[in-house]
């Protein structure tokens, strides 16, 4: 029996077509991966099937679930028991004030209709299986992204729905967590159907089954995973696959560590927040023109290391010695989430010009740098909310690079970007280091990216 069948399912905002009419079928035990960059309409397809599109959007076509056509307004009755959606950004998907254990218990209790004791026993069992036994009594703000995602998967599956739609389930997770999450999804979808939406080619490979590649609401390629991913026909698919860090060409082999002057020397450094020490006994030297990768599990103190080197957080013990007397503003940081690092109240031009006049930057340098960063002058007239995350991150880089930094701590600058943009942004960072003689520390959860972009790596372990 077909679990999902769509006939000419399309999504419109007013008269603008956001998703071209799509027809697909999926039967029990089948897996479908929808691959594409952000803004390609992948999430809309999942929401259109689920029946929870924002009220400003309009949906045409038909959705058949379990062999029957179900109108959009009747689909909520199927949620949880028949049809479930694993949303993006698990941190925002879990209720902020309720302990995560209770969020799972309530699903067994009220959705699966189990008795209280049994619901509790089930929830406990699943959390233990997922390696979350000690997180039962925590709230979501006390969990890492990977832990929150596992809880969200458990909640989405607790109602026993045979059809699971997973929207970017691995966004922002490091590789080991990503593989764990994919394994969980595969295990859960043994009997039912799994629709995964992702921009990560590696995830599509692991899940297998069918792959549909989408670009701006249009289906560009469709077929079995091995076929599409190994011999892509459409140029867009090819560029997506090429953008996977594993396939990037290795940068120059020169080790600047031996050429540049020492910039920062760290001796027996211990870093931490509040009264908690996260990492101790750090010893390393940063040289000008060098790109150093920083890796480690989430929550192990990567951001804290940056803040300590930048003098934003006091060191818990040990010494950070600077061999440059450059002004404090030339020791810079690039933030993980650009939307949180930029004011949304005024235009980007105002933000840029404020900085230019404060630090007396030569305005002739702006235009060529913007061209290199692929930023249109037109963009500066908009506010931060009106441009994409990738564009905003490149704007942040523009601001930082105009200040001629001597040291730049880039804290997961690409984790919210799609692979094509990631490749460009990370290459620019490396170029900046080499050309401006700036030392760059690059934090990333993607080992392939670190390997391809960095001269050497610092591994943080607690």
């Amino acid at each position, binding site marked *: 029996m077909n679990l999902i069948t769509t006939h000419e399912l399309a999504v419109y905002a007013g008269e603008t077509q956001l998703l071209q009419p799509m027809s697909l079928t999926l039967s029990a035990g089948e897996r479908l991966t929808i691959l594409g960059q952000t803004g390609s309409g992948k999430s809309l397809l999942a929401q259109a099937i*689920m029946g*929870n599109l924002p009220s400003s959007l309009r949906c045409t076509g038909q959705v058949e679930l379990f062999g029957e056509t179900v109108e959009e307004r009747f689909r*909520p009755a199927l*949620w*949880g*028991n028949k049809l*479930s*959606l694993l*949303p*993006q*950004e698990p941190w*925002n*998907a*879990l*209720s*902020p*004030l*309720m302990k995560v254990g209770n969020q799972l218990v*309530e*699903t067994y209790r*009220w*959705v699966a209709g189990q008795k209280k004791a049994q619901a509790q026993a089930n929830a406990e069992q699943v959390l233990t299986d997922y390696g979350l036994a000690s997180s039962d009594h925590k*709230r979501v*703000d006390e969990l890492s992204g990977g832990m929150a995602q596992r809880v*969200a998967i458990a*909640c*989405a599956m*607790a*109602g026993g*729905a045979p059809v699971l739609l997973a929207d970017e389930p691995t966004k922002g997770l490091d590789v080991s967590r990503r593989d764990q999450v994919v394994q969980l999804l595969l295990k859960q979808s043994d009997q039912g159907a799994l629709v995964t939406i992702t921009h990560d080619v590696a995830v599509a490979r692991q899940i297998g089954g069918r792959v549909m590649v989408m670009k701006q609401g249009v289906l560009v390629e469709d077929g079995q995973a091995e076929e599409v991913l190994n011999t892509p026909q459409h140029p867009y698919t090819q560029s997506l696959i090429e953008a996977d860090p594993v396939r990037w060409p290795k940068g120059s082999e020169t080790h600047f560590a031996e050429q540049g002057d020492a910039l920062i020397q760290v001796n027996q450094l211990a870093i931490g927040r509040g009264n908690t020490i996260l990492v101790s006994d750090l010893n390393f030297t940063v040289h000008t023109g060098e790109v150093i990768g920083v890796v480690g599990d989430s929550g192990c103190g990567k951001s804290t290391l940056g803040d300590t080197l930048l003098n934003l957080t006091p060191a818990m013990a040990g010494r950070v010695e600077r061999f440059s007397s450059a002004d404090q503003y030339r020791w810079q940081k690039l933030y993980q989430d650009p939307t949180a690092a930029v004011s949304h109240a005024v235009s980007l031009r105002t933000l840029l010009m404020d900085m230019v006049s404060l630090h007396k930057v030569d305005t002739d340098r702006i235009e060529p740098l913007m061209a290199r960063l692929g930023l249109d002058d037109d963009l500066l007239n908009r506010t931060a909310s009106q441009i994409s995350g990738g564009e905003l991150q490149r704007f942040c880089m523009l601001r930082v690079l105009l200040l001629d930094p001597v040291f730049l701590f880039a804290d997961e600058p690409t984790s919210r970007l799609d692979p094509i943009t990631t490749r460009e942004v990370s290459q620019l960072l490396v170029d900046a280091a080499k050309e401006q003689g700036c030392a760059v520390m690059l934090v990333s959860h993607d080992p392939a990216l670190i390997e391809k972009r960095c001269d050497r790596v610092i591994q943080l372990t607690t």
Partner: protein
Amino acid sequence: MRALLLKRGLQLIAVAWGVGTLTFLLMRALPGDMAYRIAAGRYGMDATDTTSADIVRAELGLDQSAIAAYGQWFIDLLSLNLGRSLVSGSLVIDELWHMLGHSVSLAIAGSILSLFIAVPIGLASAWKGGWLDRLVLSVSTAMRALPVFVIGLLMIILFALEWQLLPVAGYDTAFHLILPALTLGLSMAAVSARVVHVEAKRVFGSTFYEFARTKGLTHVQAFRRHGVRNIAVPVVAFFGIQLITMIEGVVMIESLFSWPGIGHGLVHAIFSRDIPVIQGAALMMGILFVVMNTLVDIACYYLDPRGGQLQ
């Protein structure tokens, strides 16, 4: 928690001193001879002349310098002695205690009414949106724009004079509480209905609320388990901000409805320059304000422990 209580204790002392000193200065700055005013308060306007004013002056030692009077008040305050009323001669603390009961019952009744008005209206306008939202917004804006005594007057005109359902003013029966409490409740609900509306919209539109629904909870379950508490946090915090509106409203409403609470007492004491009562009443309001804010902070902490520690 201990740090919070300690900090609030210090604030309480600062507020007590500040309010007392400020009222003292303001009373001294009022025009007219204080002795005449007090005599008028005691014996009535007609019986007030130079002789009776002089008697009052001599009896109460009004000749002493401002600094001496202030010093005396301050020493008395340190020994928790609020003094005696210049008009009635009874202990200020007894008078205040009597008035406090009336004020508190009015404030509580008004706050509860405001919640019963604001919560359903705010939720309904967030849920339904459209014309209901616009209607509620217009009414709220109009209500907020009206001074509270105008709302009170409208209540009197409608319920007491036109329809003759409720007494105009006074405090004999429980019915006398209805109009003042309703006036206070309406003026508070004008703003808090909008706060409930905005917060409910935020929660209903949030990813976690949507996930609660897509994982299978019904509307009612999702609202009860994930809506109420998340909406309540900012609404309770806003209630703390609204306390100032409430105390302001209580003064106005008590005068308008002759409700014998602290606000009413304060206004009368100002007319007759009964300084100990004025200072006592102002002090009591200041203390109430700090205490209630502390209660709101504690409630917020238990509703939303994410802040970690109370500050």
